[in-house]
């Protein structure tokens, strides 16, 4: 799946869970500081991403996903592996 499509679908998830406007969800943004997504909502987002792409995001990996771009890259790689 192209990165652009992953980004669009991830943005939908983040919007649904944390209420961040889709237009604000761009690769360089950090979840915590830029988008104000707290750690509990990050767990929800990870769970939703796992369901959507059929992947598994271990907690140690989740901690490293600081920006939207980090998450898109991770999903792309994990999706290929899956």
């Amino acid at each position, binding site marked *: 799946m192209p990165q652009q499509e992953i980004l669009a679908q991830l943005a939908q998830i983040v919007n649904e*869970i*944390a*209420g961040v406007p889709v237009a604000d969800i761009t690769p360089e943004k950090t979840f915590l500081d830029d988008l104000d997504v707290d*750690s*509990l*909502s990050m*767990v*929800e987002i990870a*769970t939703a991403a796992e369901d959507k792409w059929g992947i598994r995001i271990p907690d140690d990996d989740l901690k490293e996903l600081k920006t939207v771009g980090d998450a898109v890259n991770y999903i792309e790689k994990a999706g290929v592996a899956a």
Partner: protein
Amino acid sequence: MRVLVTGLGATTPLGGDVASTWDGLLAGRSGVRRLTGDWVADLPVQIGAPVAVEPTEVLDRVEARTLDRSQQFALVAAREAWRDAGFGPDLTIEPERLAVVVASGIGGVLTLLAQYDVLRERGARRVSPHTVPMLMPNGPAATVGLELTARAGVHTPVSACASGAEAIGLALDILRAGRADVVVAGGTEAAIHALPIAGFAAMRALSMRDVDPEQASRPYDKARDGFVLGEGSSVLVLETEEHARARGARVYAELAGAGMSSDAYHVAAPEPTGAGAARALSLALRDAGLTPDDLSHVNAHATSTPLGDVAEAAALRTALGDAAARVNVTATKSCTGHLLGAAGALEAAVTVLSLHNKVVPATRNLDDPDDDVGLDVVRMSPRELPAETAALSNSFGFGGHNVTLAFRSCA
């Protein structure tokens, strides 16, 4: 030190705010209806009193999704009370002088049960990370504290159906002790679900009058057969007189005192002579510097159970003496059903409005008064109150908790 009521908020089976709830009470409307849905089908009791306005219609979607229904109710009621007291963007208060006391009888039971279903059906990794903050009994108080930036303390007394009244009593203590200038206090409950209904039904505490929902909650009536489970929240803004006067606040009434006692008799059954409740009544009067002669109104706990209503009546006769036959008694639950941990807060708000508006709403469904009650219960139509008077509000809870709040008119 005097403590004043300067703001009121509510979301109840009669309406989504204080005004619609009060109008419903004056009109004697019932908030009880037949419950619908597959989950109801096998229950021994299929009536309840759900809120009139779904909180998700009022709250932002994202805000609502991480709050238990009981937290949603509390947030709706607290916002109304805060605005009603005149606070808002243009008038705030130092966070260190603002406290919150919001009670719940059961806590986030809907979240607990829903997430248990998720656990069983989809596994531990699918349980929401919001589960614990949503199910903890102090969740609603925390929600309100975060909303209003309260840093003088956030508290949650739990005493079953006396919780909401106990919250207001605790708020009075906090203000008198000088730990805050303003306390936002109340109760909330959201427990209309198969398990609590089955549990209360197993105790034989609920009305079985499924065919006649609007007639089911009938305190003091000979044909009463139990309470009707309601839901909702009510929140009051309580303020020291000094703080309220300094900002020129509109004052509804004075919270003049509180009395609390415990039965140590039975975990659920009322002590039949009402001795514990009578002590709470007497303590509230003494704390408020009132005598029974000063009273013209009692908002009774009166849930519509066969034993509870007469035990409370006995307590009133013991504590008030001759005045018990004279004061205007009303039972708000005849219209709203029983809001459990929110009931005491809602009935405190109704008592305050009765003093402020000088009128007592009538008790609905009181067609054939029980001879053992021996009180002047207002029925058929509302009754006027004097301009300068005092009133009590009773709340009792499983566990043997007795709480009486005393209010005085403020011209």
